């Protein structure tokens, strides 16, 4: 099958039932996408599919053939990366790539989100370290 990731095209073989997250990590070596629960509850595996935040651990890879997949590796120069570091919006960092991918869709659609909007839109990305107040801060100040 053909997979388009971060603007590059990849030909690969994937068995039926293989998830997008596993394919990105194991076949393409894009390990920035993390798997926290592997059942769509924690948000660590969030990637963009045609710009829409998508839980890659419960997305079958064959369903995104030919669509634009963006992972954290494709967002490394996004200003959110700096704002997350500056605000100390990460502790262990395992959920952080997923947080940034979700936040990139949020600020892409709404460059000045209110705190209420941030809390609503980011509630699907769990952070066990509890970096939430600073994640909120990083998103509020993403263009500083």
């Amino acid at each position, binding site marked *: 099958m053909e997979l388009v990731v971060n603007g590059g095209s990849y030909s690969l073989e994937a068995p039926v039932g293989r998830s997008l997250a596993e394919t990105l990590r194991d076949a393409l070596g894009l390990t920035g996408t993390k798997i926290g629960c592997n059942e769509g509850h924690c948000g660590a595996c969030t990637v963009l599919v045609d710009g829409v935040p998508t839980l890659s651990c419960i997305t079958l890879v064959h369903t995104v053939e030919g669509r634009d997949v963006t992972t*954290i590796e494709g967002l490394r120069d996004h200003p959110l990366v700096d704002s997350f570091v500056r605000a100390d919006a990460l502790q262990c960092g395992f959920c952080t*790539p997923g947080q940034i991918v979700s936040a990139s869709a949020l600020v892409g659609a709404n460059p000045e989100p209110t705190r209420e909007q941030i809390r609503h839109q980011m509630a699907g990305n769990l952070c066990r370290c*509890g970096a939430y107040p600073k994640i909120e801060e990083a998103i509020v100040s993403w263009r500083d």
Partner: protein
Amino acid sequence: MARLIKTEKEVEGRYEDVWLVVEEDALDQWPAGPGEIVGRPTPRITGAQRARGEARYTADVQLPGMLHTAVLRSPHAYARVKSIDLSLALAAPGVRAAIGPDDLDVLVDEAGYPGVAVAAVAADTFDAARDAVALIEVDWDVLEPVLDPDEAVVRKQLLIEPRRYERGDVERGFAEADAVVEAEFRTQTVLHNSMETHQTVCEWQGDRLDVYVSTQFIWGVRDEVAEQLGLPPDKVRVVCEFMGGGFGSKNGAGDHTFIAAELARRTGRPVRCALTRREENQATGNRNATIQRLKAGARSDGTLVALSGEFVNAVGWSGWTATTEGPMQMLYACDNVETVTYGAKINTPPMRAFRAPGFVEGTFGLECLLDELAAKLDLDPLEVRRLNYSHADDDRPYSSKRLMECYKRAEPHWERRHEVRARSDGAWKRGVGLASQVWYGGGGPPSYAWVRLGADGRATVITAMQDIGTGTATAMAQIAAEELGLPLDSVDFVLGDSARGPYASISAGSSTTPSMGPAVRAAAADAGSQILEIAAQRYDQEQRVLSLKDGQVVSSDGGSWPVAEVVGLLEDAQILGKGARGPNPAGMQVLTFGVQVVEVSVDTETGEVQVDRVAAIHDVGRVINPLGASSQVEGGIIQGIGHTLSEERLLDPQTGTILTQSLDAYRLPTIADVPPEIVTELLDIPDEHLTNLGSKGLGEPPIVPIAAAIANAIRDATGADVRSLPISREEMLRALREARERQQEKVATPAS
């Protein structure tokens, strides 16, 4: 010269004597307050790597030819394996090895809790391994589990002898009391749920074993694995560059490490054993539930005259009995205190340390009880705490204690209660509560660090420790930069590999900064004095007039030379500094203290509780990185809010089956659950007796008082006594009903 001394080591309240080699003369502490780099807010040096998805966690280790493991776990709380047949699994596609109870110690044929490992399969893919595990045939003899901790105590099914403590005469104390309160408090079982599950990759290199593991203690894993496998410890190399959270659950090697090592040995291939989220929530430990039957007596002015407590820890099938009774013994000056603690052995997964184990639970009970007492005597809860302040001027003085200063700093937050209560609106009642915190956090020896400087003038700190997400690497780099007078971006930090650095302490018990920091500073000071020695010879100066500042060697007569120029003389030679953690102050208690003031809103119709504001004031000595420190405080409070309001591991009461294995069933706090305002105030005054830094640990203190502070705020808002965690809507409504009934009784039978 190396000097051998005997010193005391404290691990979560237990003291033991250890021998220690001390190499350096003690350095004087830096003056209080911010330095050039230490004490200033600093974004973490590993932040970009983590945020960009470049950081390599154990989950990201992919070795050529690596196999994957699936584990067969007991579906029963208590059962014996009558027979087990691995042959179908061994014959399944892609399977390279299968092992059972006869092959490895950690695989058991008597299951004492659901989720204990019984057999394991290594295959080319995880899917193949999981499919093969489904083919393992087990004939179980299912036994009746004991799940109620009180029943275990009655049956004397205990993991330790009941732990008894007594000072003074409690009976006489209660006889002298003007007011006595008595209550039973319950705390639930909660799960760590680190975002990276427990996992290990093992690869044999001849007779050496490489272990990539998500761990809080590289050297502990090395020693545990070496002992279990009968290897010399340095034949085991343990690597953990980045790790995705532990909170106490990753202090040991874990069964999965031994399973991976054995399967790697049998197959001659690297083997990963990674737990699924559902396995994580069965088999990797928990903060155990407690039952606390407490009693407090005071004179009418609020002076405590007696405290007593019976504590039942629902430890599980194995594990240790945390000091739930600790706060009752330590927090207040009370002449008469009696406690007994039971470690109930039941058919549930073993507890593991979870961020201030015992003290989180014990502080909830004690600090709620104290407020009930204050309410009965119509006294101000903050004043009652001040009145019973413990000075510990007995045989074990505090190295430093500034809780009174914390109370003073709490006043403006506490004063808000009048205004907060006035904002109650219809069914929504608002109130303010507070609770105090005592916990350990002094760290201790041994811990070592090296500092290397090359001709480019950059320094590298090397120590085989782990950064579990607390910002350790940043704090250590700050300490080295401060001591060497270098900018932070001239200091690199290498950690995470037992083959590439000296012994480093565990990252648990709020001990990492106080254990490692002084060793790093000593190593930097050693390297720094070598730079000065070289400069003195090269530029014809007396060494005593030279110092390091702003990347320069500075002479008191005004001369200065860039450090890069001085070490540039070395060409390929290097300066190597080494440092060791010295002993803790002999005969002293090194403890952390604090107080939190919480504002809540309670919907008295639905039982919903919202935390509106938290002020956290803690005394942890010198603060290395105020930015990272505030993150630790916020994280502890948010984890504590989860513990207080939403998290609970549920069991089927008949079979012991764990019902909350997934993250939709087990309710972690989300960003939407965070209080709009968390105020962090750290006193930031060095502990003058503790090491060359005066820093204590901060990882745990913020989670200790939050549950009691929330419950006390609820009482302030509604008059209801919450006594059980989590404060679900049902528990909230129960407490409100009880308060209403109490009120009606009072009205019906006026005091004579």
